[in-house]
């Protein structure tokens, strides 16, 4: 119990004093995970929707694979991205290893299948509802996808938030490809891992509470912006 109290105290102190390091780490966490979220959503929302409206030969296998990829172990993703970006790897010349960009790439790979899979589930239902009308109106595939994404945006928000939750709390991959370098690639989760390793539980817990508060804040902010649960079912 002492550790937890000390943690709360440490968190309180860090926040009240507006600790420069904490602010930097928090902003970097947000920057990395929100960038990953935007990129992953741009890829996953159309793909998930496309999967819901198209019938093709290996559709079931594709969806099963996608669902399996939701459980992709971050450490393995980190390892593979590391190998690709390392000096001797195929993309080594770009010098991306141990930069926030590398961390964003790893997180995009981790959360894209998750967002695409949840999108597919939500869009399937909406497509069943709209199917006859959109076929009858002779819409193109592009028009169908855009219509479904727009009208199903509330459900897609859930998909995006799930992706964000996985990204912001993820530590295995960004530790490997980012390297947890102070003032360069240190984020909340890697800092917590480091402080725990050093035995500074108070600071680690403090960072932990900041992380949870951050996740809550982003969720509330997005819900407030998109006004879910205010205009009824749609």
């Amino acid at each position, binding site marked *: 119990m002492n550790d937890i109290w000390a943690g709360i105290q440490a968190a309180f102190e860090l926040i009240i004093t507006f600790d420069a390091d904490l602010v930097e780490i928090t902003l970097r966490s947000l920057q990395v995970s929100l960038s990953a979220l935007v990129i992953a959503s741009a890829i996953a929302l159309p793909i998930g929707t496309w999967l819901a409206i198209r019938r093709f030969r290996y559709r079931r296998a594709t969806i099963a694979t996608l669902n399996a990829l939701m459980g992709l172990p971050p450490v393995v993703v980190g390892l593979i991205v590391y190998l690709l970006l390392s000096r001797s790897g195929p993309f080594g010349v770009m010098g991306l290893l141990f930069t926030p960009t590398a961390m964003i790439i790893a997180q995009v790979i981790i959360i894209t299948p998750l967002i695409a899979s949840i999108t597919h589930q939500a869009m399937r239902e909406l497509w069943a*509802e*709209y199917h*006859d*009308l959109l*076929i*009858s*109106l*002779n*819409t193109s595939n592009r*028009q169908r996808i855009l*219509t479904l994404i727009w*009208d*199903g945006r509330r459900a897609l928000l859930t998909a995006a938030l799930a992706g964000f939750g996985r990204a912001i709390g993820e530590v295995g991959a960004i530790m490997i490809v980012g390297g947890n370098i102070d003032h360069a690639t240190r984020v909340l989760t890697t800092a917590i891992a480091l402080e725990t390793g050093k035995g500074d539980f108070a600071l680690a817990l403090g960072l932990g509470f900041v992380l949870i508060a951050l996740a809550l804040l982003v969720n509330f902010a997005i819900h407030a912006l998109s006004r879910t649960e205010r*205009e*009824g*079912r*749609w």
Partner: protein
Amino acid sequence: MSVSLLDVQVKRRGKAILGPINLDLGATGFTIVLGPNGAGKTTLLKVLHGVERVSGGTVHWSVSDTEARQAQAYVFQSPIMLRRSVRENLAYPLRLLKLDKADIAMRVTDWAQRIGLGDALDRPAPRLSGGERQKLALGRALIRNPKVLFLDEPCANLDGRSTREIEALLLDAHTAGTRIIMTTHDLGQARRLASDVVFMLNGGLHEQGPASDFFVAAQTAEAQAFLNGDIV
């Protein structure tokens, strides 16, 4: 534009659900498709509209297929509402054609008035009543000024007043030159609206003719029985 079906057949899992059927429909008129459940009325409408896969035979419109599809509209038995406002629902078919915004806004206001939803433009469409929904679906179908309008039992589950409003809209559209092909189970409605009748039975075309002849003296025993309210 007129259409002719030649030996059209629709099979699902080896079972014939329509045809083989030969049918000619002229460029004008108000055709009512009658027949008991499972006679293939909806399938026929979907074949004509081009959204049902045909297993055999040909559907031939007097214009090219793409042109024909653009000039058609379809109203479903249970109206499909986009999860948007009434205004957006009406605008949607026009948006797909990438029309000018001012033009879209004008036509939307006009049609909202015509279907009696002028005051409800900003209401969410899924929350309208059953009658309002069907009127909105009809308005959305007519807003493109289709040459051919298909309706699959548009007045099922509607009360007298809503049915009358829908029928008035249909007659207006017909007068304005839209060719209408509609299924119904309401014989009174068929008598009020039809200029000619297609009577379907067991997936085939059983009898076809002008409404004046069909309702007075149907040629086949089955059609007579159907009109008398017997179960065929």
